[in-house]
C-alpha cells in the first residue's frame, strides 16, 4: 500500500448563476482590475488515501466525489492524484 495525495476541484456548474464569482469580479473591478472577467468560485479539497496502485487511488477518489464531495445537480469536479513520497 502506498499513500497518494488527492486534489479535487469542485466548481459550480457553468449554467448556474455564481453569485460568489460575480461578487469577486465586482470587487476586483472596484479595486482597479478592470480587465478581469469570467470569475468563478469553487472549492478545492486536498486529502490523502492509501491504495495499492495509482489506478486504485483514482478509483477511490472518484467514488468519494460521486458520493459525497460534489453534488451532481449543482457542481462539476476534476481530480488529480499523485503518489506522496
Amino acid at each position, binding site marked *: 500500500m502506498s499513500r497518494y495525495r488527492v486534489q479535487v476541484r469542485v466548481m*459550480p456548474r457553468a*449554467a*448556474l*448563476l455564481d*453569485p*460568489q464569482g460575480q*461578487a469577486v469580479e465586482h470587487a476586483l473591478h472596484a479595486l482597479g482590475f478592470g480587465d478581469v472577467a469570467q470569475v468563478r468560485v469553487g472549492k478545492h479539497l486536498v486529502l490523502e488515501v492509501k491504495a495499492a496502485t495509482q489506478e486504485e487511488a483514482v478509483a477511490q477518489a472518484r467514488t468519494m466525489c460521486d458520493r*459525497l*464531495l460534489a*453534488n451532481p*445537480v*449543482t457542481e462539476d469536479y476534476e481530480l488529480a492524484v499523485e503518489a506522496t513520497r
Partner: protein
Amino acid sequence: MTRVAVIVFPGSNCDADTLAAAREAGSDAYYVWHRDADLRQADVVVLPGGFSYGDYLRSGAIARFSPIMGAVAAHARAGGPVLGICNGFQILCEAGLLPGGLMRNARLKFLSRPAWVRVESTDTPFTGLYDRGDVLEIPIAHGDGRYVVDERTAAELEASDRVVWRYVRDNPNGSTRDIAGVCNAGRNVVGIMPHPERRNAPILGGQDGARVFYAMEARHATQHAVDVRAVGDRHLRV
C-alpha cells in the same frame, strides 16, 4: 394521534421547536436520533432545520448519510409523509428524495427575516389545510436557500403542480422561479425553506405556520374519522 418522528442530526437546532409545534397541534411527536435505524412506527417524519454537521462541505451533504436516512427513504418510498424544513429540505435534496439543490443566497449573506409565501399546492400532507393562493407570513433564516434545478425539471415541477410554496412580494434568496418549497412526484415528500414552527402562535406575531402541523394531525383524523377542531381563524375541513 399521529406519530411524528423528528429526526435529530448533530447540529440540528430547530428540533425542539419542531417537536413543540407538532405537539401543540395534537400530535404524538418524538425525537429519533440520527444513529438509530428505526422510525418507531412513525406516521410522519420531519427533518428539522439547523446546521447538520455544521453545513460543512454543503448543507445537508453529510447528514444524508446518517444511518436513519435509510429508514427515512424507505418510509418515503412507501408513500409515508416526509417534511424537510430548511436544513431538512437541503438534506432531502442531497439525498435525492427531492429534485434540485439549495445554493448560497444570491446576495451571499445569511438572511433572517419574515418572508411571504403563496400556497401553490394544497395537495400534499402538509398543506391540505390551506387554500391555494393563501399568502402566509413565515420567518426564513438561511444562508443556502437559493433553490436551483434544471429548466426541464423546473417546467415539470410547474406542470405537475409540485411547487408547494412560492415567495411573493420579493424573492429573498434568488430561488429559481421564486420557489420556496417543492414536493416529489408522489406528493408525500415536501421540502420548504421558511420555518412554520416559528410562527404558530399569536405571541410569536402570528400563526400562519400552524396549519402545517395541524395538517399532520388532520390527516390522521381523516383516516380515523375523529373530531373536528378549531384552528386559529378557521375550522379544519375533515
